[in-house]
């Protein structure tokens, strides 16, 4: 895209970050009382709320029940005012349906599903403000909410995006960088075991560069893991202190 230099000669991006720098992450666990688990995350200007209900009895038709594992049910919806242009409806469009499916697949792989056969876990994600990396932030928020709900996971699921600009991979891209037409690689990993649970790439990227970009994204996931881990430890510590454990 002409006009905007996504990566300056000095190695700074439009928002002042370096190529391998994440946006500021702020998060909180347990924002709601009614949900079994909930979390809020801000990655730069992307703000996401996630709530987890369950495991509980299958809601709706019983035929959805799986006899050997839990049914992971997701819903991704975006507030009508979350984007620059007003959305007509919060969900039900193709993009949010796709996102719902991706989230479902991701967490099906990360939750210890065999522990709760014939039950259901709901993960509801609500985008309050969107500025690129919605999937990544949703995954991170949902992970925190699942942890808050006390649902056994193989590991944290951390997601990060990356792109390739001026022969250099860049990490955690914003909406501006997303929409500039470059390649976008999204990856969700289990950082400890270094397993990839979800990978998606849009647009064109030379084969040789793929590994660099992927490395950058995986590195981002690890960085995110550190931030999330710290938040979780702090939260658990607080809760323990309040309830008189220790």
């Amino acid at each position, binding site marked *: 895209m002409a006009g905007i230099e996504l990566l300056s000669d000095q190695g700074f991006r439009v928002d002042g970050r370096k190529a391998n720098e994440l946006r500021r992450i*702020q998060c*909180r666990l347990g*924002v*709601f*009382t*009614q*949900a079994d688990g*909930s979390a*809020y995350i*801000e990655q730069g*200007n992307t*703000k996401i*709320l*996630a*709530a987890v*209900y369950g495991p509980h009895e299958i*809601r709706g038709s019983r035929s959805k029940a799986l006899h050997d594992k839990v049914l992971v*049910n997701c*819903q991704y*919806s975006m*507030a*009508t*005012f*979350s*984007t*620059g242009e*007003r959305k007509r409806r*919060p*969900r039900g469009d193709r993009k949010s349906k796709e996102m719902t499916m991706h989230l479902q697949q991701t967490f099906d792989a990360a939750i210890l599903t065999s522990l709760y056969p014939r039950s259901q876990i*709901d993960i*509801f994600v*609500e985008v*309050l*403000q*969107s500025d690129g990396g919605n999937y990544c932030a949703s995954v991170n928020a949902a992970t925190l909410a699942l942890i808050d709900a006390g649902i056994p996971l193989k590991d944290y699921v951390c997601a990060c995006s990356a792109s390739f600009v001026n022969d250099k991979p860049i990490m955690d891209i914003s909406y501006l960088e997303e929409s500039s037409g470059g390649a976008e690689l999204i990856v969700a990993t289990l950082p400890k075991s270094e397993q990839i649970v979800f990978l998606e790439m849009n647009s064109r990227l030379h084969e040789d560069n793929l590994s660099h970009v992927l490395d950058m994204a995986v590195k981002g996931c690890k960085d995110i893991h550190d931030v999330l881990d710290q938040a979780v430890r702090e939260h658990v510590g607080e809760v323990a202190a309040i309830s008189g454990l220790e």
Partner: protein
Amino acid sequence: MVDVQLSDAEKTYIIHGAQDNLREDGRGCEDYRHLEIETSVVSTTSGSAKIRLANTEILVGVKVELGETSPENPDKGRIEFFVDCSANATPEFEGRGGEDLANEISNMLARAYDCPSCLDMRKLCVVEGKKCWIVYVDVLLLECGGSLFDASSIAVKAALYNTSIPRLTVTHDEGHTELELSDDPYDVQRLDVYNSPCIVTLSKIGHSHVVDASQKEEACCLARLMLAVTDKGCVTAMKKEGSGSFDVSSIEDMLETGKKVGQSLNKSLMEVLVSEDRNMKKKYMTGYLR
């Protein structure tokens, strides 16, 4: 709405409590629960507000868009309400589950704002008969803890207060009209919400009535009277809800209470909004991280 199961004994306890002006959480019949308001929370909107009324949490985003005027009202802008019940609040709202409730809330809000003195729609007209501002008020329900109508109306008023509409200059040039947007992002038009209504819901419990019913109280209330009350002490919309009925004389008492509570609610809300507006620069953190 989220169901709360109550035993008969619990119901009797609440009903007797309401009679003696002492409710299960220690409030009197005309007291609201703790209310927190924050404005300017979402940067993609022209105005936004988040309110937390005990367990009820509502986020309102206002977006203004330039559109065509309607043929019936060529000299006025428009306001449109949309309510979304997020599944975060309860799994029952998943998919289209919350639509009925959402419609009810948005209809009530639309009716409450459907009178000339609430918001001056003529100020939103840009070119008469052609262009006007359309104000989209989107209400997002994040957690349900009772009094959704009251909380939504408060949040809407706060968000409208917070709304800034870019100033446009209109130049007429040989039959063409040109619109020019001001370069200064601070050169904005604010909405006058001084006379916008707040909804007060009076729930009839036993023979008495309470404001701001909690979920437990809602479970033992058969009929509710909703009043959209303005600062001047006028009603802009009224509605009875629920499967019960009211005695003719009890309606008069409820109106009395509604007026009193509604006016003081409006007053304290405006105070908070004005003071928050002044302290805007000091505050930098928003959302859930304070």
